[in-house]
Every structure is written in structure tokens, then in C-alpha cells.
């Protein structure tokens, strides 16, 4: 009873501290905005089929059921010209290559969350596992695991990702595999370094003196004291991973053409990025809206990461 109340006031105090900082408020506001967009994407931009005249149609299967279009494929609309067209009431962000940019940006939010969360969670878990074994046991186990980490770090990421996608084939999932395989080292090193420090703390020795098993010492005493920097790093990585995925998509390694992904939308603009002759910015909207979404998404995660660090890092208190 009193325990719950106490935890509650502690929580409120932490929240209050977090939201005293305007940039933290901005970060969380942006993040919440993106989350809302991702959740309500089907309402904001309804997935539809278009017939050859560019009119919305509904297709039925043999049982008379409505066939739903794949929402992550930006609808192809023949009414829209191939070359970019400026924003209009029908297409608030403009169009490019017979597709609506607004639709792509909205559904791209989901793709961004999907890529970011999946890759961050898996690579962080792998990193925590390898880093904590390495740090806690030390000795030759540490040596072997850290040299493996070094090998992975020594391979240039873009090159590795390109080679891996060449082997596995193109696609969002392949890009995610590449980013996970070459993305766990930071977390591993960070947690190892923290564990090396915490391991020397007297309360670890004290718990050993009480006869507590290694597994429990790692899980109960070491990890809770080392995990926050890793979580903060993970939240910062969320944003940058989306940029990386976009970069790979831009290079044509990631999402296939027409996929609702900010990076592959920029891929469309390759031919138009320099504008028309004489007016460089004539197709600005083709780059601006997907690019802006990306920038704000990264900004949101970085600000959230900063806010978490300010609250949880005892050295900044």
C-alpha cells in the first residue's frame, strides 16, 4: 500500500523533472505526434486501388469479399503525372511518379517505427548479452568476445550492409538483418565498460559474501546499475537507424520502389533533385516532406534520449 504510493510520488517527481526542460517537451510532443500518425494512418491516408482512369475502385475476390490493398504500397494512380506535381488540395504534399507523397509520408511513419524498434531492441539485447558476459566474467571469455566485437566494428557498415543485401537480396527485412548484425557492438561495449566499473563496487562483493549466485548478481545487482546508459543510447540510435535505413533505401538496397518508406521515397527524387533547368527548387516538395519527416523523427528520439539521460544519469543530478 505505502509502497505503491511511494513509487508513485517518485514517478511524479521524475516526470516533473523531465518536463521542466523545454527540449524534452518538444521531443516527447514530436514522438507522440508520430505515434498518433502511425496509429491512425488508415484514417489519415486511406489505402485504395485506382483504375486506369485514376478513379478509386474496390475489387472483390471470388467469395465477394473486399480485397484490401497492401497499405505499405503507395497506391499507383494513373491520373497523376510521372513528373513531380506541386502540392494541391487533393495531394497536400504534392505527387511524384504517379504517387501521392502525403500517403507515403504518413505510412512511412509506421515503417520507420517498425525498422527502428525492431532493430534497436534486437541489437541492444544481443549487445547486452555479449557485453554482460564479457564484462562480468572477464578473462579469456572477455578477450574472445571483445575481439569478435572488434572484428565486427572494423568492417565499414555501409559496405557490410551492401554485401549482406547482395547475398540475401533486397528488401526492408534484409536491411534490418544487416543493421542488426552490424549494430550490436556499441551496446555490447557500453554495457561491458559499465559492468567493469560496477563489478568493483563493494555491494557486488557484499552480495557475493552473502552467497548469492552469479546469475542473480548479474540480473539483480549488476544490470540495473548499468542499464540506463544503454537504454539512452538505444533511444538515440532509434532515430539514426531510420536515417541509415533511408540511406540504404536511397541506394536501392532497401525497400522496393513504391514502398511507403521515407528513404525509398527520396529514391524517386533522384532524377528531380536538381530541379528544372533554371529553377533549382521547383520540385522542392518531393525532397522536403519525406526529408522533414525523417529529420523530425530523428530529432524526436534524440531529444527523448537527452531527456532520459538528464533524469537517469546520477552524475548530471
Amino acid at each position, binding site marked *: 500500500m505505502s509502497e505503491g504510493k511511494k513509487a508513485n510520488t517518485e514517478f511524479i517527481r521524475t516526470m516533473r523533472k523531465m518536463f521542466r526542460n523545454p527540449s524534452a517537451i518538444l521531443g516527447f510532443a514530436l514522438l507522440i505526434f508520430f505515434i498518433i500518425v502511425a496509429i491512425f494512418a488508415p484514417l489519415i491516408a486511406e489505402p485504395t486501388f485506382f483504375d486506369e482512369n485514376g478513379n478509386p475502385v474496390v475489387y472483390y475476390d471470388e467469395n465477394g469479399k473486399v480485397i484490401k490493398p497492401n497499405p505499405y504500397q503507395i497506391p499507383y494512380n494513373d491520373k497523376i503525372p510521372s513528373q513531380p506535381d506541386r502540392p494541391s488540395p487533393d495531394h497536400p504534399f504534392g505527387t511524384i511518379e504517379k504517387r501521392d507523397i502525403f500517403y507515403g509520408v504518413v505510412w512511412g511513419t509506421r515503417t520507420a517505427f517498425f525498422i527502428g524498434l525492431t532493430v534497436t531492441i534486437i541489437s541492444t539485447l544481443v549487445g547486452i548479452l555479449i557485453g554482460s558476459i564479457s564484462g562480468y566474467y*572477464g578473462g579469456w571469455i572477455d578477450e574472445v568476445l571483445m575481439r569478435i566485437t572488434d572484428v565486427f566494428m572494423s568492417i565499414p557498415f555501409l559496405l557490410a550492409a551492401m554485401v549482406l543485401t547482395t547475398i540475401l537480396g533486397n528488401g526492408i527485412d534484409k536491411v534490418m538483418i544487416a543493421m542488426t548484425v552490424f549494430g550490436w557492438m556499441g551496446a555490447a561495449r557500453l554495457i561491458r565498460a559499465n559492468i567493469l566499473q560496477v563489478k568493483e563496487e*563493494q*555491494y557486488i*562483493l*557484499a552480495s557475493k559474501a*552473502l*552467497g*548469492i549466485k552469479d546469475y542473480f548478481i548479474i540480473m539483480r545487482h549488476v544490470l*540495473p*546499475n548499468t542499464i540506463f546508459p544503454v537504454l539512452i543510447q538505444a533511444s538515440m540510435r532509434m532515430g539514426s537507424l531510420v536515417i541509415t535505413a533511408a540511406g540504404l533505401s536511397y541506394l536501392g538496397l532497401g525497400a522496393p520502389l513504391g514502398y511507403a518508406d521515407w528513404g525509398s521515397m527520396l529514391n524517386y527524387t533522384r532524377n528531380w533533385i536538381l530541379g528544372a533547368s533554371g529553377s533549382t527548387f521547383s520540385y522542392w516538395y518531393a525532397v522536403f516532406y519525406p526529408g522533414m519527416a525523417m529529420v523530425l523523427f530523428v530529432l524526436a528520439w534524440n531529444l527523448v534520449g537527452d531527456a532520459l539521460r538528464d533524469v537517469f544519469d546520477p552524475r548530471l543530478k
Partner: protein
Amino acid sequence: MEKNPMLSVRNLRTYFYTEDGVVRAVDGVDFDVYEGETLGIVGESGSGKSVTSLAILRLLDPKGKIEDGSEIIFNGKNLLDLNEDEMRKIRGNDIAMIFQEPMVALNPVFTIGDQIMEAILLHQDVDKKKAREMAIDMLRKVGIPEPEKRVDEYPHELSGGMRQRAMIAMALSCRPKLLIADEPTTALDVTIQAQILELMKSLQKEYGMAIILITHDVGVIAENADRVVVMYGGKVMETSDVRTTFRKPKHPYTWGLLNSIPRLDIEQERLYSIPGMVPDPLHFPAGCRFSNRCEFGEEKCSVEMPPLVEVESGHMVRCFFYRKVEEAQKLSKAGEGA
């Protein structure tokens, strides 16, 4: 009078294999601890007293190795022969330890209740609710006010003295037969020190446990220990009951230590200090390890290590020339009298 010791340390040698060479931190230490008594181990930093205590629980870091031929016999079992699982059952349950810095010996992310319960749940067959009751009970025993409330507090919410009390509660929660207290009061201020030592004494009486009290503070030993082991350079220099050692020290080092205590009954211009520095454990002097700082030393001392000899019943001294110390004491006593 002749009881069997509950803990016998025999020829304990603990070497650290560093890149610069072998550090003989503990080099052939023998002592006994009897049931219900307090054994004080006193010595300067680097004398090997903490390493000795960690060696008993086998908690040395991997660089430190307990050499073959060492024996730590606890209730008839050599702890050095046990495997890690059996050793874990001894730790906390039979032999518990409290540490110097109560500030850092409690995990900051758990409530003190959680930490006490962890030990109880580990070694005793009770459920969480019972363990919590036992934890509250323990906190009350160590004199923490409002234990029902304190049990849910985090270490940073307690003062240093309270934390050390919580540490003691944690260590004693499984009723160990032996408590190793490594500088338990060094980090506390003097009034709190006295309270904590008083608490340890009364709990010792209640539980009938033995205590190994490790400190560099001769005063703490004098007031709280029954017997004393004086260590220097990883060796036992003198051991006897507290009264004998402190009234009539026979080793020059012990005498030096006692002389360095400020006294109120005589006027002193300047406090005595033992000349020289504690030698680097990589390069102990040949022969007696105290020889380079000793005022009574002769040539023989820097060649040959003196044996630990029994000069009176129960009073062992590692010095060739302990008679000179006796003489010097008589002279100085006479000087004081005049």
C-alpha cells in the same frame, strides 16, 4: 579453558600474481577463532588483514591465489577443499561479512528490505511474507527506528550509521556463526562508531557468534576484542589476549603502534610515529619484514626471518630481541614516573 577453535587458519599464504611480480600479501598466517569470542586483527594498510578476511570467504579477485598448503578449517572442514556451490552455502549462512564503506556496500537500486530478504530467501526455507517479517525484525534488532517504514527505503535515504546498521542486519539475518567485520567503523564518525561497536557486542552476546574484527584502530581493538593478532607485511608479528599485548607488548612494531596513540595522561610535544614507511609488498626487506623500520634491530634481523615463538602461555611474538623491548618499556615507564 582448552576449547576447540571454530576457525583455524593455518599457514595461509595468498599471493597476487601481477605483471610486476608476485605480491606476497599474506605469507604464512596462523590464528584460531574460538566460539563466542572477538578476535581483533590489527595492522597498517597493506599488512594483509583485509586479504586474510577475503581469503577466508574465498572472495579474492582472480589475480589473488591461495597457495597450496594453506588451510582454513571451519567446523572441521577445510574451506579450501569445498567446491564453489558448497562455499556459497557457507557464505552468508555460516560466515558473514560486513564492510568498511556502508555508503557503497548497499546496492543503490534496491530497498534495504529487498537486500536483507534476498539473503534470507537464499539460505532459509521461508516465503516472501515471512522473509519480510524477518527483515523488519532484524532491522528492529539493529536499532533502526520505525523498521516497518525503513524496510522500504533506499540506501540513499539513510544516514551512514543507519546504513551500517542495515548492513549488520543483512549480515546477521541468517544467524552466522562467524562474522567478519572489515573496518566496520572506519567510515563513521566517532560517536556513531561507539554505537555500532556496542550494537555488535550485544548482538554477539545474543547470538553467541564469533567476530573477527579487522581494523587499523588500536583503540577499537582494545575496547572490543578478546584476543588480538598484530599483522605486518603479511605476517603475524604478535598475538595474545588483548590485555597482555597492550599492557606488555613484546614486538617492536606493536609497541610502536601503541606509542602512536595520543595520550591524555602525559604531556607530549609531538606524537610518536614509527619511522619509515610500510614497505612495498613487492620488495619486502630480507629477513624480518619490519627490520628496516625497527629501532631494536641488529644485523641478524635483516638476514633471517625470526620464528613466531611462545614467550608466555598464549603469547606469541615474532622477534629475536623481544627482551630489548621489555627493557625499553621498563625504562620508559620509569621515565614517566619521574
